[in-house]
């Protein structure tokens, strides 16, 4: 099961994901992110505290959203990923491209 809760904390849009992100459902993460971006929001925080597992399929959606946002001078920042998710982000080298914060508040206030 993978769920999303989207809320506005102006100027930031917060997307809280919960569940397991793999090839069976990563498209839902892609949809959630594109939905927010298509509404014109460009300052996003993706909270991954309730995601215990993410495969490269999830990473792929994050990279596409990030590319889209950067072109629109926006950004996607990650808040409180679990150790296993951090490992995946670091393995892909994406940690040098995306900002990761230890808490939701820090991520939101970073904008």
């Amino acid at each position, binding site marked *: 099961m993978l769920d999303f809760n989207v809320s506005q904390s102006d100027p930031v849009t917060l997307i809280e994901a919960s569940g*397991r992100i*793999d*090839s*069976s459902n990563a498209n839902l993460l892609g949809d959630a992110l594109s939905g927010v971006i298509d509404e014109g929001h460009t300052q996003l925080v993706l909270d991954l505290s309730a995601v215990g*597992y993410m*495969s*490269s*399929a999830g*990473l*792929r959606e994050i*990279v*596409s959203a*990030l*590319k889209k946002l*950067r072109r629109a001078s926006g950004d996607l920042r990650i808040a409180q990923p679990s*150790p*296993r998710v951090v*490992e*995946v982000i670091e*393995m*892909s*080298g*994406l940690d*040098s*491209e995306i900002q990761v914060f230890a808490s939701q508040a820090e991520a939101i206030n970073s904008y």
Partner: protein
Amino acid sequence: MNEKKLRISAQIKDIATACDFVVAEAESAGLDERDAHHCQLAVDEICTNIIEHGYGLADDERFIDIICQKYDNRFVVQILDDSFPFDPLGRTDPDPTSELEDRRIGGWGVYFIKKMMDELTYDYSQGRNRLTMVKRLKSKTGLSENTRKPLEPTPILVSSYPNNNWSIAPSGRLDIASSRRLEAVVVKELGDGHRNLILDMSKVDYIASGGLKILVSLWKRTRDQRGDLILAGLTPSVREVFMLIGFDLVFTVFKSLNEALANHKFNSK
């Protein structure tokens, strides 16, 4: 551990079942949570590849077999499928240092597998692709040679103290390669006439059997030149190995470098 086998239909939704199976087997084989996660991620990534690229999506007539086995200190996972012959390891790796715009979208799954697993073999026989992935079990005593990937060589620090005492501080893993570098340092110090040697081990978190052998030969060598080599600041994992093989009876060991400097009386001044 006997061979355990799971067959899933070649559908993305069934991969989670394979993941649960592998995690359970990995944990019962004695892998820790992080290593079990590596196995899970590896199985997830390779099954996803087989289904998306090998079979074409949603082919429930086909299946993938996952076989787990513990063999000595190795947890072995075999993934078998009968789609067209394809070596997943043959593909060029994506570049993790590439900038966002140039980042490759696909290919990360197999790259992760290569990073996470200790051994990988692909073969095609009897009409089936087989990927064999091995995760080595970490040795509790730290005696095993092959539990972690080698680190960059770290500097070995030499410092001089009153009474012609010298400390030599290696760091990280003391395996054959790093012990040879330590050997070179000790030989140089002896050549310079420094015979009161304290090996500061406080930054050594792992010692391999090859490292232990070299340590003994260095101790003998120092003694032969009328010097002494004592040890200080063993970390818990190294101390455990020392006690296990009785090295604590051979070497003079102090809790810390400072304690060694304050309390040990070398014979030569």
